[in-house]
């Protein structure tokens, strides 16, 4: 099953309660996925690159961090700030080179959860409240974010198998997905022939890389989603976020649910209305359901 949620504040101010909203929305649909919970949070960002790795908690942790440090030094990326939280290590670096080559190399040190100037992905086993307790998600403000509660069906219950997925190699692109892509291997091979590397066998990572590749080629998010609805075979309701935008898409049979609500200030999208209700307690919402085969995008109207 799985549940997805996303929120986008239109004013682009970096101090909106994105973390708090996503914890509430995901807690509202935790019944769709009790195994693990994840968040892709977008802040105001600066020139530094934020890297978050999965390093574990046991004795393997120090070794993983040492491996990462050595790769960082190979790329002349100087750590500016670092922090251990839960099973992750977050480090900000000054880096101006090719992010794709950098990321592929870093993956050899430890599982890289995300890379971005604005993006930070936090995901772990447990409920939204569990992950919030360990990582303090509720206190994280920003511009927008997406989140996911997972019911594992085709892989283990492990933090690296949880969503959101970062578009490996592309800064600031993340996805949450409810469904299954049936032409996964065909599309993956086509991208691998162009030297893209995949770090999981999860079909959601494929969607993220596929979209990010198009964005890098100059396509708008809207155009990339229009093509995705044609190219992807299977069932999907997914949300994709970039440094300054949010998009959603639904397969042509509308096999997976998605409900949305838009006001002058924000857009909120979730698998179920119960999640949207959490944002506006006591209000009768006028929600809508995107039609089959549809997609939509939002981007910040005011750039800081």
């Amino acid at each position, binding site marked *: 099953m799985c549940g997805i949620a996303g929120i986008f504040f239109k004013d682009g101010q970096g101090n909106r309660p994105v973390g708090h909203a996503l914890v509430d929305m995901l807690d509202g649909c935790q019944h769709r996925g009790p195994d693990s919970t994840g968040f892709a949070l977008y802040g105001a960002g600066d020139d530094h690159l934020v890297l978050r790795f999965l390093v574990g908690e046991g004795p393997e942790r120090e070794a993983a961090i040492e491996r990462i440090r050595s790769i960082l030094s190979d790329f002349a990326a100087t750590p500016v700030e670092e922090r251990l939280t839960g099973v992750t290590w977050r480090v900000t670096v000054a880096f101006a080179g090719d992010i794709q080559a950098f990321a592929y190399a870093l993956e050899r040190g430890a599982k890289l959860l995300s890379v971005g100037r604005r993006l930070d992905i936090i995901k772990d086993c447990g409920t939204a409240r569990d992950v919030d307790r360990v990582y303090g998600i509720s206190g994280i403000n920003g511009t927008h974010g997406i989140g996911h509660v997972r019911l594992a069906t085709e892989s283990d219950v492990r933090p690296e198998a949880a969503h959101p997925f970062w578009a490996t190699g592309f800064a600031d692109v993340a996805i949450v997905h409810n469904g299954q892509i049936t032409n996964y291997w065909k599309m993956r091979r086509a991208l691998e022939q162009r030297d893209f590397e995949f770090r999981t066998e999860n079909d959601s990572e494929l969607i993220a890389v596929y979209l990010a590749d198009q964005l890098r080629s100059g396509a708008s998010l809207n155009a990339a989603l229009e093509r995705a609805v044609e190219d992807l075979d299977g069932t999907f309701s997914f949300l994709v976020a970039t440094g300054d935008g949010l998009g959603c898409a639904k397969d042509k049979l509308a096999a997976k649910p998605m409900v949305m609500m838009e006001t002058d200030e924000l857009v909120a999208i979730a698998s179920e209305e119960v999640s949207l209700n959490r944002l506006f307690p006591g209000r009768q919402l006028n*929600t809508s359901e995107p039609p089959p085969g549809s997609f939509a995008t939002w981007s910040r109207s005011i750039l800081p």
Partner: protein
Amino acid sequence: MITFDLDRAPLRELNQSLHDAAGEGDRRWRIVNPRGRHNIAVGMTQALEVEVAGHAGYYCGGMNQNAAITICGHAGQGVAENIISGRVRVKGNASQSAAASGRGGLVVIEGDAGARCGISMKGVDIVVGGSVDHMSAFLAQAGTLVVCGDAGPDLGDSIYEAVIFVGGQVGSLGADCIEKEMTAAHRGKLEGLLAQAGIDADASAFRRFGSARKLYNFHVDHAGEY
């Protein structure tokens, strides 16, 4: 009227209370703060009048027998699924698979309904004030689907003996679904359903669709359509 607040007591308690309602006394219930919760007023067997004051989640009024349920908002997937008898009315829009597998009774959706409205219906009458999306009345076996607005693609795919009336445009017809003659008897039936549903529409503007009955028995000429 008995008011039940879903912010103050759990859903199971509501459904149990509705099932256990005494045969005498107040027969009208009002459910407040539904907040899109699933399975509200499911499995009803008593002739109660239930008003849901807000939006309902999945399967509201599912398996209904005898009760008259009104949702004063939108309804999630599978509203009134497998309804046996009684009435379910949605004042707003309904999501996918409204009245799926319904065996009897009347389902009225004043707004629009999503995809697969009336999928596998087996005797229920459905009146939609607005439009329905793709694959509505898929595998529909018996009963009547009335759509005052437009129908999406693949209407009535693999339909058996259910009858479809559409007031607006049809995106496309599914396999084995064809337009049929609208006789005076059909118009009379449609007028009766619109009156029961309390929906004001001109019956003379509707067209009728049903089964071409070519897929009932295997025929090699139709192999591509199965």
